[in-house]
């Protein structure tokens, strides 16, 4: 078999990234949109860790940890907004979230 | 093969380590079987102990003193009709208990029953344990949701909130123990489970007694958090029988239900193992440094045999106390055979202890074998004490209410563990 190189990891990350983008752009359910964002973040941190391995230093891994922190913050705030929104409009469809004020 | 086994016994490496893949596999099988048997034994013991707390006898009919009751239960559960509610989400309903079980059993990969008696020695061992045991909550949440019913849903929401909150206190308590490993010459701590026990050995103190009140406080906090984490009384809100019928597994029956029970008990043993490893010196026998003469080694190595001898004696007393009526004949024979088996094991262990003693200086196979038995014995004994604690609490205390539980988790345990962590760091810096 071909030995696994950084390039292989990049391809996987790119595939995850594109899947995430498709999810963000096409799904209606906000929860799933948030999940797709998590996919994108994962793709990015996979890239970073792969590069970290490629260069043989730890910067990529540290950044991956920061990305996890960011993902946690993003999920908390995003889901908080979602709950608040659901209370008011009783919907989580992205099509119906079209007012700047309610 | 035999030679390899002997050479393994003579070696001092973890099976997961270099060139021991085969033994790693065997260890996985041994641990899987061992944990399953332990869960069954725990099931029997809990029923009997609880019964005696409550002035009852508990199971008495299936086998002498109900010894075969867990087997009968397991058979019954396997043969029961497997019901999936029509409105349930079939796939998720099916997979939920499997998630819980996998999470509960996966944790055993890194539990060190001895310095070389573990499946693997990961350098992120404790992180791995916390992570995998936090996956167990997924099984519960998903089970409650998939049942498509109100009580399971409430139970699932309760337990997910509970487990996520208590994980924080638990993690902080663990961190303070890990911090203690770093107070050595090199100033470097370790996350490896084996490394943690080794550093207790090197520092000559179990971490429960380290910086006296601090280790103890962290340990107590961990114990409270671990009871909450495994959904046991007095924190068994998720399956509070009198409130939510059976909580998240209300709709489950038969084999699937037994998988939930299996994973609950396996998780109990797993978290107890963490507590033992982090604070109670893991496989170390009491006073390994104070009483380290070979003579003391011999005395302590007699303990496993003596324990089994005691169990055999109890079983023989049971035989003697059985009614002399002829209808008890089979039970008497069965119990006597069980007692004889225990006695035989005791004899074997004592023999090994004596044989291992005579050549304790060189690394003979008997000596290695004796050491291995010692390690596993002390580890299992400590875990068994925790199991008794679980039963004791269940028999004694009422159940907390959900908001009180969350209050304890966030307003009591979290600040205390944080304070202990900071104090441990300060004291450690001052001392070293």
């Amino acid at each position: 078999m071909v030995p696994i190189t950084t390039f292989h990891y990049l391809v996987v990350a790119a595939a995850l990234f594109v899947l995430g983008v498709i999810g963000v752009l096409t799904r209606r359910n906000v929860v799933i949109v948030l999940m797709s964002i998590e996919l994108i973040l994962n793709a990015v941190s996979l890239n970073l860790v792969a590069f970290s391995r490629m260069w043989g230093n730890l910067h990529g891994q540290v950044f991956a940890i920061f990305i996890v922190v960011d993902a946690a913050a993003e999920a908390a705030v995003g889901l908080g907004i979602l709950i608040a929104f659901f209370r008011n409009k009783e919907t989580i469809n992205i099509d119906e979230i079209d007012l700047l004020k309610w | 093969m035999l030679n390899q086994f002997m050479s393994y016994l003579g070696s001092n490496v973890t099976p997961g380590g270099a060139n021991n893949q085969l033994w790693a596999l065997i260890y996985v099988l041994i641990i899987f079987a061992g944990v399953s048997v332990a869960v069954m034994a725990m099931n029997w013991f809990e029923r009997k102990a609880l019964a005696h707390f409550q002035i009852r006898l508990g199971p008495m009919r299936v086998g002498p003193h109900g010894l075969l009751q867990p087997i009968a239960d397991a058979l019954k559960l396997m043969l029961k009709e497997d019901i999936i509610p029509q409105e349930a989400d079939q796939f998720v309903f099916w997979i939920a208990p499997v998630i819980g079980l996998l999470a509960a059993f996966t944790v055993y990969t890194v539990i060190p029953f001895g310095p070389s008696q573990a499946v693997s020695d990961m350098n992120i061992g404790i992180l791995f344990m916390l992570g995998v045991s936090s996956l167990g909550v997924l099984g519960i949440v998903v089970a409650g949701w998939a049942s498509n019913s109100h009580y399971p849903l409430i139970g699932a929401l309760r337990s997910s909130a509970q487990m996520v909150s208590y994980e924080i206190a638990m993690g902080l308590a663990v961190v303070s123990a890990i911090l203690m490993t770093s107070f050595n010459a090199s100033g470097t701590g370790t996350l490896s489970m084996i490394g943690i026990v080794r550093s207790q050995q090197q520092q000559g103190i179990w971490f429960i007694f380290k910086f006296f009140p601090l280790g103890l406080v962290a340990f107590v906090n961990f114990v409270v958090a671990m009871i909450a984490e495994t959904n046991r009384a007095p924190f068994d809100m998720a399956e509070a029988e009198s409130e939510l019928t059976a909580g998240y597994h209300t709709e489950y029956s038969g084999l699937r239900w037994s998988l939930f029970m299996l994973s609950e008990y396996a998780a109990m043993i797993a978290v107890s193992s963490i507590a033992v490893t982090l604070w109670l010196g893991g496989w170390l026998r009491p006073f390994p440094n104070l009483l380290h003469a070979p003579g003391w080694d011999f005395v302590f190595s007699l303990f496993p045999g003596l324990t089994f001898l005691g169990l055999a004696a109890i079983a023989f007393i049971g035989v003697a106390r059985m009614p002399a009526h002829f209808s008890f004949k089979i039970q008497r024979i069965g119990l006597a055979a069980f007692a004889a088996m225990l006695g035989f094991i005791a004899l074997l262990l004592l023999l090994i202890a004596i044989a291992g003693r005579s050549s304790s200086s060189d690394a003979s196979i008997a000596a290695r074998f004796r050491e291995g038995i010692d390690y596993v014995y002390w580890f299992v004994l400590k875990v068994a004490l925790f199991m008794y604690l679980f039963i004791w609490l269940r028999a004694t205390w009422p159940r907390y209410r959900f908001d009180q539980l969350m209050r304890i988790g966030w307003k009591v345990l979290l600040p205390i563990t944080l304070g202990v962590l900071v104090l441990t760091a300060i004291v450690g810096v001052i001392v070293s």
Partner: protein
Amino acid sequence: MIPLFIWALDSPLQHPAGIAAFLISVVAPVNGEMAPVATPFFFYLLSGLAVAGGFFVVTRHNPVHCALALIVTLIAVAHLYLMLYAPFVAGVQIIVYAGGIMVLFLFVIMLVNIERASKDRRFNRIWPVGLAAACALMGLFVSAFVKGRGLFPDRMIKLPEASNTQEIATALYGEAGRMGQYTFAFEIASLLLLVAILGAVIMTKKRI
């Protein structure tokens, strides 16, 4: 569940490891001192699982199924981290992502109206535009990878793995009184988390 299971049994940290190694030695004999878990077979298996999980996240109707698929992806990616000699990141990924964030997601899915959501249309009104944009992005990636294949060297430098956690700690917190390279960023991240917690609490509370 396969990744979880594999993760259960492999331990690339003390190479070679566990049952995964055993399986590998049966499936494809390994030669040399190459870590057995870092074999192409495992790479393809895990990346396949990750991509399949991502695919289901995007296509499944039911949000809970999506969440489960995402968990599979996350755990598979954690494995990939392990293969890349980043055990600490993998551990953090499991604890924070799979154990924390995904439970939060499931919690919210159960709170909001899922019955109706699962009967609704899956995709929004402008899905063709979105899909086209994503395809364009994919084209960009493909062209970049095809043209820039040489930009990524094939080397894979072995990182000292046993001290991985320690080195990350050094980078984050510094060493012997010196501030680490990322200490300031780390503090900022903690501030970010604090703000996020406060924001989430304030937004979800009915009356403060």
